[in-house]
């Protein structure tokens, strides 16, 4: 969808229908393979239990949205998937969290190799203070790409996929810090998909973006779904409804302050026919 068309398309309902049609290409996700699976997964920061007893699946080639109020443990769960917590002293997980049936926290799993299979886009765009080209090439070089031509071709391909190519093609070798926030975030997405991970984790990737850039990212997700498994944390209900196949709703247990999974299922059902009263309150905006 071109930017001009988006600008004229101010009627959000119509837009929803347009993008929703893309989602609705696939009504039934339950036949897809389980890419990620959590079984009674718990997570602790020292003595504080941040996640308790999470059980859910994230299916291959589908988009799973994680929604819930602030502090309920969405980021914790997302970051547990690529072991980003390894750096945090005292943080540990137990129970099962599996990628293709292999326990992510098992002793046989190497965090570095794991992260090459699982890319991540952070809430705040965190580009390196390097050129636009190098921001993407770093990850590729780490993954063993050294041929200059292939590298350049892959960088271009990723920038195109992230809908950034046209804006930066003339200044690939100038600093990434000179880009706008939204452009930086799309650069981070390009960087994350460059080494062809199998899973793409996105933590509120659009929280710093304007509506147009947000829509671009959503379209990108729907396109990337063909190749990747996407898990996205979002505070934006419309975004979850528009651009995800399945939705997990999380809530903090008022007594223990640890995060729980309240309801998980196809996005349509979560938003139109939730089973739990708390889910209904949250998605209809009557929460708290």
């Amino acid at each position, binding site marked *: 969808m071109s930017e001009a068309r988006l600008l004229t398309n101010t009627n959000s309902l119509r837009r929803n229908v347009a993008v929703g049609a893309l989602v609705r290409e696939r009504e039934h996700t339950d036949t897809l393979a389980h890419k990620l699976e959590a079984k009674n997964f718990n997570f602790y920061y020292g003595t504080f239990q941040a996640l308790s007893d999470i059980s859910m699946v994230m299916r291959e080639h589908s988009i799973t949205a994680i929604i819930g109020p602030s502090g309920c443990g969405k980021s914790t769960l997302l970051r547990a998937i690529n072991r980003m917590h390894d750096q945090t002293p005292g943080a540990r997980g137990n129970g099962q969290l599996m990628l293709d049936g292999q326990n992510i926290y098992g002793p046989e799993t190497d965090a570095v190799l794991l*992260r090459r299979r699982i890319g991540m886009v952070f809430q705040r765009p965190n580009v*390196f203070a390097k050129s636009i080209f190098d921001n993407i090439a770093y990850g590729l070089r780490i*993954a063993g790409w050294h041929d200059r031509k292939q590298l350049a071709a892959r960088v271009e391909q990723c920038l195109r996929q992230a809908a950034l190519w046209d804006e930066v093609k003339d200044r690939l*070798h100038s600093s990434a810090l*000179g880009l706008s926030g939204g452009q930086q975030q799309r650069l981070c997405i390009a960087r994350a998909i460059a080494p062809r991970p199998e899973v793409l984790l996105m933590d509120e990737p659009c929280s710093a973006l304007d509506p147009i850039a947000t829509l671009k990212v959503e379209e990108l997700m729907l396109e990337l779904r063909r190749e990747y498994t996407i898990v996205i944390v979002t505070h934006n209900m419309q975004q979850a409804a528009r651009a995800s196949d399945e939705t997990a709703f999380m809530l903090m247990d008022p007594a223990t302050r640890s995060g729980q999974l309240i309801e998980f299922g196809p996005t349509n059902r979560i938003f139109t026919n939730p089973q739990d009263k708390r889910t209904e309150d949250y998605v209809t905006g009557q929460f708290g």
Partner: protein
Amino acid sequence: MAQAERLSTWQTFQQRTKHGDVIFWLLTLFFALMVVALVAAVGYVAWVGSSEARGRFGLSFLFKTGWDPNAQNFGALPAIYGTLVSSGIALLIAGPLGILIGVFLSELCPQRFKSPLSFMVELLAAIPSVIYGMWGVFVFVPFFRSWVAAPIAKSVGKSFPLLAGPVAAGRGLMVAGIILAIMILPTIAAITRDVLAVVPNHQREAMLAVGATRWEMIRKAVLPYARAGIIGGLMLGLGRALGETMAALMVIGSVKDKISTSLFGGGITAASLVASELPNANDSMHESTLILIALVLFGITLCVNAFARLLVWQAARGPVGSARS
């Protein structure tokens, strides 16, 4: 009406803070100018005090060897050479080591050893230089002579004049460089640790998330981000080495009249030359020459600092067209 009144009190308040601004501005300006005045005063004293020697030797003083107070024959080259070489050796050794220690303290050290180790590094920086010198004289010089200098001079030194003997005295440029390295090591390590500690976590996470190992993360995300600060730390260490007097004097061998081709040979640094001779300079020419040596040292440190500024500025500028320029 009430609104207008409130507005006017607000305005007077603003006026008042404006005065505050002016006073504060004048105060800071005064102290900033004082720094400039101090530098100028030091330079002026050295310039005037050295006029006799300058008039006699001219610019060739910088390129001449020889040191004979009785014949009034002086040259600065050995002191310049000794200063630059001993400090250069110190930086070559302490630079990489200090950065590695800083990296270890900030990135790799287990939490529970962090503060004791950091404390010890800071303690090392606080030891007075005369104690380093003493340790150098009694412990390091004998050890270095028989276990390092002698074997090297006997083997490699046969074909490399820079590492040739004799090593009998033990004291020399190399030993001084090593002692200076030990002295500036904690400075470099502590500064590196501090600048790495403020590298934002999201930079580390960005690198890890694309599948970097810890070492790749440090090398490609953490160190580049902290580059300007690390260079600053190196230059601070170098500055300390250039100006160090006591420890250098005790181990460098005090050879003032010629340049030894070997690093194991004796030498002198500008600072230690001035410190050791000024108290018993026997005539005005001798005194004036020593002040000129001090002026030369002043010039060397100014040049080094200007160069450091340039490096830091370039490092901070980042890639072409960076928004941080």
